[in-house]
């Protein structure tokens, strides 16, 4: 209900793409990390994220958009209402685009060559190790080329990408240029005083001295990278941490749906900690209106639900496929079409076996996962996460935004 109301009011031509003319309010960038610099462009039409390295013209920083400059931009919409910048037309006529992928030549060649290679593979003689090795190599190359080509094809045919290209063709033309409706920026802070409220610690102020470090835990296969923000807010030093490297390393930005964790230097933020563990669990950023929360360790989280549902679906699908293969093979070996009784028997057998085995497996795995969760997060399960989420939701609603919270982990 709220979602619909807010999406109508939000500055967007379509539900996937935000495009139009805006006025730049400011550009904030993270410190560069591993050759990538996450930036946030604040405009009167919303905030837009991008990697500075996406646009070769912006890499030096000398040509950054100035506050007050008129910009025409195209961005794909993220879940929380902000956007991921894809192209940017400047006042002076310059156009910043993502450069064409260096793999784009692969698309037609790959689509053509993969079936050719498959056909060639079947034509090769299959006697001798050398021929068979060649066949295997051809097969692997064909599958790889086909996969990459299909990925490029998926990007090219993605509705977001096509809408972006359409808007790019229209938007750079001055006749079709439309102005984005202004977004309700900036957001109002909470009117509570700093300090502890019902188990929640609150500090409001400007985020200063933002530093970003990459922390590494474990080694080898168990290596995990975290990005840890250190910043100063309202006189206290705070730090928070999230997984690093999930967004943007592999996927094309067309597929991005989650907004990244971002703390801009000088942002007015409301910072919520839980008194039970003292860690920063929510950052309500008044500059871009995003609520970034961390519910790690809460008993029933979205990520936990995803994991559970994915596991159950996988279990069911795996058993369905295995069972179907066995049954079909049996019918095939009988050499005649199964009658209705065979189908009924197979169905009842499948239901019985599946129910029993699914229950057993899910129960066993659930017990193990529950113990592990208790081992790692047992102390956090009683913390007032709901009040924290409630404050974040109310803050989003109060500022006229959707009830989507950005979870960082």
């Amino acid at each position, binding site marked *: *209900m*709220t979602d619909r109301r807010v999406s109508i009011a939000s500055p967007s031509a379509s539900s996937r793409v935000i495009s139009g003319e805006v006025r730049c309010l400011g550009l904030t960038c993270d410190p560069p990390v591993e050759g990538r610099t996450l930036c946030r462009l604040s405009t009167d039409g919303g905030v837009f994220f991008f990697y500075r390295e996406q646009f070769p013209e912006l890499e030096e920083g000398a040509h950054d958009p100035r506050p007050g400059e008129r910009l025409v931009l195209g961005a794909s919409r993220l879940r929380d209402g902000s956007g991921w910048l894809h192209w940017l037309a400047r006042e002076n006529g310059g156009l910043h685009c993502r450069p064409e992928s260096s793999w784009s030549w692969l698309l037609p060649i790959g689509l053509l060559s993969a079936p050719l290679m498959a056909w060639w593979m079947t034509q090769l003689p299959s006697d001798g190790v050398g021929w068979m090795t060649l066949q295997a190599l051809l097969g692997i190359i064909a599958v790889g080329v086909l996969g990459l080509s299909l990925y490029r094809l998926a990007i090219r045919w993605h509705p977001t990408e096509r809408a972006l290209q359409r808007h790019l063709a229209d938007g750079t033309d001055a006749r079709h240029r439309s102005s984005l409706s202004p977004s309700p920026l900036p957001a*109002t802070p*909470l*009117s*509570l*005083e*700093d*300090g*502890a*409220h*019902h*188990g929640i*610690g*609150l*500090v409001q*102020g400007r985020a200063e001295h933002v530093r970003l470090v990459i922390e590494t*835990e474990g080694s080898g296969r168990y290596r995990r990278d975290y990005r840890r923000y250190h910043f*100063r*807010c*309202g*006189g*206290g*030093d*705070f*730090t928070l941490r999230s997984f690093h490297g999930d967004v943007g390393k592999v996927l094309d930005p067309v597929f991005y749906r989650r907004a990244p964790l971002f703390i801009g230097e000088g942002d007015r933020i409301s910072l919520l*900690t839980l*008194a*039970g*563990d*003292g*860690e*920063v669990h929510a950052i309500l950023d008044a500059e871009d209106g995003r609520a970034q929360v961390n519910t790690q360790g809460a*008993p*029933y*989280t*979205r990520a*936990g*639900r995803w994991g559970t549902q994915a596991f159950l679906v996988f279990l069911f699908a795996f058993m369905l496929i295995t069972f179907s293969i066995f049954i079909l093979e049996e019918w095939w070996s009988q050499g005649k079409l199964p009658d209705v009784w065979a189908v009924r028997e197979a169905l009842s057998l499948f239901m019985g076996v599946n129910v029993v085995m699914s229950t057993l497996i899910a129960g066993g795995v659930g017990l193990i996962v529950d113990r592990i969760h208790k*081992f*790692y997060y047992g*102390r956090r399960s*009683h*913390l*007032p996460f*709901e*009040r924290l*989420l*409630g*404050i974040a*939701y*109310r*803050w*989003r*609603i*109060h500022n006229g935004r959707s*009830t989507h919270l950005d979870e960082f982990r």
Partner: protein
Amino acid sequence: MSVSDPLEFHLDRTDLRGLALLVFVIGLGLVYIALSVTYRRVPAEGWWGCGIVATVVLLGAVGVFWQRARRGRGLAEHITVDADGFHSRLHGRIPFEAITGYRKARDIAPLRWEHNAPSLVLTLTDGRQLRYHLDRRHYAEDILDYVGFVDAAVLAANGQAALVQREPPLGRQRLFDASPASAAETTPSLVGTDTDTQTRASGERRSSSASTAAGANRSRSDARASSSAQTDDAATRLGAANGAAVQRSTAQKAHQRKILSYVVLGLLALLVIVRLFGSEIRSVVNPSPFDGMKEKAPAAFELSKHRLARAIAAKGPVFLWGRPAPVAVQPVLLPNVTVHSGIGMPALDLMSAAGRISDFLLGGEAEGYRVALRYGEALARTPRTRVSQASVEGEGALYFYLIASDALESGASARPMRTRSWRVNYRDIETLPERIEESLQARPTLSLAMAEQWLTMTPSPYLFVTASAYHGMTEAQFDAVTQALAKYFAARGVDTASFATQRFDSGVIGPEKESDHDR
């Protein structure tokens, strides 16, 4: 404070929907059972009619419940908490003293379980039960007020209404209400809010928050002047707590890693132990039936053998008729079963033999006994029959053994000729000659003519005729039998003058060679 800010949220009678589901599932089961029981026992038209009516009634009941549950959604509740109770739009004024008990649980939606909220049942002194389930459709808007109310109600039900009074529940109004009166109401305090958080961390926080509260009270007199200083103070304190939390989580991670490494080490040790002592562990946990067979088999065989000997000893005397032999000749009773089926493993064979003897004895000796003949170290016996050889009323059984003479002279021949043996059943002693001929005709390997021819040759083979009391033979009957046989053989030119009758007290095999004989 007098009256708190209003808490607004929407309620849902979720329990009714759960009840609808329960009614549906149980009703479906009942209808299924009833219909399958009455199938073909009542006329078809009546059965169909009853089934349709029952299904319609079930669906109707579920629908009524569901409809009531739907109507129960979205109840707008409006609560104000004051010093000694709260005022509810749905239930009216509820003083804290009226709450006698509460039950707190959690409503979790299966498909969107991140939208889960506590559910609360308050029991009042007048017996009423107030049920609170948050309407999930309004989760994002209402969860703050709802959790504030639930926590306040639980505190009040626990008799800690003073805490509620000191710190009113946090509702949506206070979040963005910038009026100075309300701002003065908000006293940053943490005492008692996380009563169920019994962690070390909260303990630390609580001690520090006590000083916070004291500091807040002190500074309220000149709040305006020192508000910025207090803000800085709170921020510094929370920042320090955050730093401590990071250190603590690092230490906790190290601790967890230590425990995990211990667990991994333990698992590795377990692996090594299982790998090294697997057979021993298996023999304790799941002993193989072959373990210790070599030790157990002889004992088991001894036991079976003794049981068999006692059973045979109870069967009474056995009789022998034949000419004197150079070695000791004795009729013995043998079970009519194949005791020995050699598979080449002595322990297993012995155990199997013991088992077969036990089975024979436990089976009431249904297969019956046959009379075998022991001569010297060897044992001659009639073949096993599928028909039981137990004694039949009015029927006598004689066992004939025809043994080559060199077999009885010890060391005379390395490979004696085969022993011939057969059994003769008879009812009337007069018909004995025909019975003997019949029994020999039934055996193609030994024709009567050959046997008679052989008996007249020199050195003549030894012919032994045995019988037992087990098969109903008495001494007098055996004498009559031997006379008849003597007459029979004399008619065929066989000299039976040296034949004599011997009586043995029991057909038990002597203790020294039993296992060999059983094979």
